[in-house]
């Protein structure tokens, strides 16, 4: 029997698209039961959204004031309680899942498979190592619980289906008070979310300054795209840290990725190689980004990008 528990990610009002991707991965395990757990303060709307994901057999809603913020130390013992009797616990390889799932695994006395990119069977998985320099097969011990995070760029979300039942559970596990949420600062400027956007425009150090980076945001707005950046651009302070794409930032798989003034270090490439179409604009014809770009333009970005932006805007107006 394969019994899978998927830990839902949400912001209190909306279910994250990551959860539908985790469910897709869970379905690949050919489960006999597939339960989505929603931990929230309130959370009925989120639970209803989770119940509509195809393949989900049941949604368990744990509605409690201490679940208002997603604190790993608070959530982990509750996940462990719900995991009782399960063979697999899955969560997204987002900062939420990366924070929580290893804590769950250790409390259960098991290891974790990080960033599953493919399921071979219920206990064999594929994942990357060394910034995507290799793909390996990991075989988990079939006598133990499997705890895993799902590499979001490798999965599309499941669609909608007739809603599954929602069960409210109150758990009697003790939750710690040693960890307290203070605040969340978020500034997306009304643009699409980088992790889930269909189109992404990203800039590198070559933009030169925070001011120069405006060329990227203008192009992104003309395309309706999210804004990303190389580590170099983030370290240089052009943009916020949550816009970093690559091994140690976000791993994304948009339909269109436009890399501007990014040379293409392997740590960056590993974050974008699942993109459908990669466009590179760089003045250095030898830049490694051109080795993987579908469409390359060797040009001075300070001329080419404004020209591209106005060409796109002109098309919009027609």
């Amino acid at each position, binding site marked *: 029997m394969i019994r899978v528990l998927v830990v839902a990610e949400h*912001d209190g009002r909306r279910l994250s698209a990551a959860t539908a991707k985790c469910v897709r991965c869970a379905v690949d395990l050919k489960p006999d039961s597939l339960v989505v757990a929603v931990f929230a303060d309130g959370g009925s709307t989120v639970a209803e959204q989770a119940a509509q994901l195809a393949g989900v057999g049941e949604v368990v809603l744990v509605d409690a004031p201490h679940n208002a913020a997603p*604190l*790993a*130390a608070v959530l982990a013992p509750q996940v462990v309680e719900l995991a009782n009797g399960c063979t697999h616990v899955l969560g997204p390889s987002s*900062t*939420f899942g*990366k*924070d929580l799932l*290893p*804590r*769950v695994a*250790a409390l259960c*006395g*098991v*290891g*974790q498979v*990080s*960033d599953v990119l493919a399921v071979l069977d219920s206990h064999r998985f594929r994942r990357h*190592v*060394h910034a995507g*320099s*290799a*793909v*390996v*097969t*990991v*075989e988990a*011990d079939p006598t133990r619980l499997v705890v895993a995070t799902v590499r979001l760029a490798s999965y599309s979300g499941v669609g909608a289906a007739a809603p599954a039942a929602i069960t409210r559970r109150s758990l009697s596990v003790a939750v710690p008070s*040693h*960890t*307290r*949420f*203070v605040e*969340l*600062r*978020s500034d997306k400027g009304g643009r699409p979310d980088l992790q889930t956007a269909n189109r992404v425009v990203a800039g590198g150090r070559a933009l030169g300054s925070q001011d120069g980076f405006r060329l990227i945001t203008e192009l992104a707005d003309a395309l309706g795209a999210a804004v990303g950046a190389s*580590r170099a651009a983030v*370290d240089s302070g052009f943009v*916020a*840290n*949550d816009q970093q794409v690559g*091994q*140690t930032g976000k791993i994304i798989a948009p*339909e*269109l990725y436009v890399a501007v003034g990014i040379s293409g270090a392997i740590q960056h490439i590993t974050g974008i*190689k699942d993109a459908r*179409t*990669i466009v590179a604009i760089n003045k250095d014809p030898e830049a490694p980004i*051109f*080795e*993987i770009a579908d*469409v*390359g*333009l*060797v040009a001075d970005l300070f001329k*080419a990008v404004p*020209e*591209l932006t106005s*060409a*796109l805007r002109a098309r919009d107006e027609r």
Partner: protein
Amino acid sequence: MVAVKRVVDYNVRVRVKPDGSGMALEGLKMSINPFDEIAIEAALRLKEAGTCDNVLLVSLGPAEIEPQLRTGLAMGADRAIRVDVAGSLEPLIVARALHAVALREQPILVLLGKQAVDDDHGQTGQMLAALWGRPQATFASQLTVADGVATVTREVDAGLETLAVDLPAVVTTDLRLNQPRYVKLPEILKAKTKPLTVLPFAALEIPAQRQFTVREYVPPPQRSAGVRVKDVPELVATLRSRGVLA
């Protein structure tokens, strides 16, 4: 207490062995995992601010990892423990070992990198916090410690999240936490005489059974280079013809 892992240097391109049994690592330049170097720097700054008296480095591995511990001592750490063990270790086993050391050493804070750039697991800090029953603050980009509480700003997908955690606690470091200092020659010489204790793995009395088998190392599917366009109009036309742009 800072956990340190020796990894292939960040700038070295690693390849799969022709027989697929692993990565070809022989003769490659090795370094402290870059995130762990940031963790060491964070600990040193806490010491310089008078928050702690002593910075201890802990690493697991054979004698070959000692140069990386010496580098950390040269940065300014006071002493180091090498848990003597051979072979690759799963994160849960590393976390158990660090937990055993933490129980002996009673640190106010354990700092680790958020992930090692070789296996990319990103698990050890969270597992240590779970086993120890203490708070965790992962992906830290700011850290202040006062009155038994660490205030940590975390780099999360939604932006910057701030947590307050009671000490002792586990903090894992992200790239923007600090810029690690460069080591000066006199410090390297001084580091040679700093205490480096070797602890046999068996002395920790922890279960060390592996739970996973890793096999079939293969290079990832490569994207091939596409077309080069000469100017912006041709770029737009190409994207249109491929259906990428309307």
